[in-house]
């Protein structure tokens, strides 16, 4: 069972600090005045209607998207145009995508060892040993020598999670990790994520899996129209939403 959900207390160490952050796509103001502090070991679920800026927000955290105003500090490193700083942040932050984005020309094992070997300069043997360890953790060590195209969606997503873990990230970002999966495969991916949450990983997760949110999140954030509308501990959030927009959203997704 997951550690009991709790809201952050003062004295916790911040992993991510976002202050007054704004972002535009051309003329479109996609993220408006975002303020968010994520503490080490927190497990945050971000939900909201499509187009609300959830994905964009977490993609700003590893600079896949550039913000235009305000500050983002990841593990104490400020994200600016400085490529070195960006690379430092990316080494510490793992990301899992909706469409897995595995490298189709490499085997599963090569997918996992590529970044440790080329970015962390790890010897190949060590990288492979670590990769096998993580493949066992996501329960597919027997697929190591296959190509991603030969795996099912759920297996691919678990490989993608293992690939991120191979870099020993301090923070994991999940961008709708189960949205592209068939129903029977969602469970196997969620199990891996629950396992990860229980190990104390700092996680930010954009998802509509409310069961997952209830089980592992210690904070749920609701976004709409590029703003953080409401955040609360999951019990409170689901049983007693404060804003009208949250109530409307919850009534639409929870039947």
């Amino acid at each position: 069972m997951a550690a009991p959900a709790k809201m952050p207390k003062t004295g916790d160490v911040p992993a991510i600090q976002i202050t007054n952050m704004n972002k535009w796509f051309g003329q479109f103001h996609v993220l408006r005045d975002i303020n968010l502090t994520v503490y080490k070991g927190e497990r945050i679920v971000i939900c909201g209607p499509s187009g609300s800026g959830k994905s964009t927000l977490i993609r700003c955290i590893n600079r896949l998207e550039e913000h235009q105003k305000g500050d983002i500090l990841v593990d104490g490193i400020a994200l600016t145009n400085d490529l070195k700083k960006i690379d430092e942040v990316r080494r510490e932050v793992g990301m899992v995508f909706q469409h897995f984005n595995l490298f189709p020309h490499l085997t599963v094992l090569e997918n996992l060892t590529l970044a440790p070997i080329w970015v962390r300069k790890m010897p190949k043997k060590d990288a492979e040993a670590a990769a096998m360890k993580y493949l066992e953790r996501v329960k597919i060590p027997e697929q190591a020598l296959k190509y991603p195209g030969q795996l099912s969606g759920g297996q691919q997503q678990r490989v993608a999670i293992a690939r991120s873990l191979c870099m020993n990230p301090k923070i994991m970002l999940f961008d709708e990790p189960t949205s592209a999966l068939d129903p029977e495969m969602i469970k196997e991916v969620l199990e891996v994520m629950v396992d990860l949450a229980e190990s104390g990983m700092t996680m930010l997760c954009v998802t509509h899996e409310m069961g997952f949110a209830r089980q592992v999140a210690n904070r749920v954030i609701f976004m709409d129209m590029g703003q953080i509308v409401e955040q609360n501990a999951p019990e409170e959030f689901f049983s007693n939403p404060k804003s009208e927009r949250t109530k409307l959203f919850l009534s639409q997704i929870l039947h």
Partner: protein
Amino acid sequence: MGSAPKTSAYLRTEEAPLLPPPISMVGIQGWVLANLFPTIGNGIVSIVAGAFLLWMGWGILDWAIFSAAWSGDNREVCAAEGAGACWPFVQSRFAQWIYGFYPIDQRWRVNICFIIGAAALVPMLMPSMPHKKWNALFLLIAYPLITLILLTGGHFSITPAGFLNAVIILALAATFLPLLAFGIEEGIQSNRFGLGLAGFGILVWLASFVIGSSVWHSGLGSFSPGSIAAAVFIGAGGIFGIIQLRGTGSGAQAWRNWLIGSAVLLGLMLILKFDFGLEPVETSQWGGLLVTLVVAVTGIVASLPLGILLALGRRSNMPIVKTFSVVFIEAWRGVPLITVLFMAAVMLPLFLPEGVNFDKLMRALIGVALFSSAYMAEVIRGGLQAIPRGQYEAAQALGLSYWKMMSLIVLPQALKIVIPGIVNSFISLFKDTTLVSIVGIFDLLQIVTTSSNDAKWASPQTGTTAYFTAALIFWIFCFSMSRYSVFMERRLETGHRR
């Protein structure tokens, strides 16, 4: 509604048996029936087309083998009524088609080049052979050097001033090493003094060209106070640059790379200058298949990396890089190859300063290489565009730098997609080499044309046989490339699913 049939419940109680396929699907008989005579119409087409193929095949066989003249010393055997191919003529001229006017007693040098090339290329092309890295290094660095020296005779005239120029360039590179090691801003900061010295040195050097009196005029091939002063300043800048590198990991790496690069450059110059005692052979004496292969291989080897760089440049976010790539690609693609060759052979010497003169074949090679790299760039760009954004994002999210992302993730996939396009370009380049005959270089086709006009062998079949042979040689090379590309495509197939 009451009359609608009820859906009845159903439960299978017995397994349906597994049966062998019907006779029409198996064996030769099944294949013929299914593929050649599935309907009456298709059957008629099969018979007519088959008859045509047999007739064509018999015609070619009869001409090339059964009615052909196989031995003889002059035109008489070939001029006979109803004679087929004139092989004695091909036999008597074949060596010339291969070597051109390369001195007969020196042809062993060409043979060695062919043999080493084949011996190095074959294991390179076989995926199961080990040591690909060393094999590639040999093919790309050592082999061109060996061929250059063997074919020309080596012993290039590199003056001491030439070495001075090389040292100046290396010192200049050393001045910029901190920028490479520490990033641009920090690098400039740490080696401001060295960069200043080097910049001043360059100004002095350029000034010495511009002033150009007999005392000051340095040119690239002679010593002058100007060039010596420049060397001193730039050299000092380089030393300051190297001093900045001390004691840092990335600095040590940059320093090591610089040392290797310097050693290679100066070593190359020394080797090229060295007198191996080979008789010099002018490139105007080269010809035939030798020239065709030199032009084609140079074009192929140069166009792939240049094309990759241009394609990446064209998709770059940096406006200057992008503009340069677009202008380069469109300029070269916009002109016919013949124009390029004429420019290289006839116009370029007019623009070059007096005394600067480089080889006609060399100029044609550069023209062909740049021309084909522009085409290659567009082929590769097509592949780059087929790579989904997610691949870039996943690579970035893992912390890969731009060049690592490109070389490890994007290019391997993009190049694989465009293998047919790349090989198409290679094949068309191989055949386009025949155009160098326009500027008086005797490639295979040109030498075949010339020799088939020989009065000693004049007969209705001489030219036909000569061109047939030339076509066969071209076809063997092009078809090999084509088959190899099919093989690679299959081998690299990893069951993509996006």
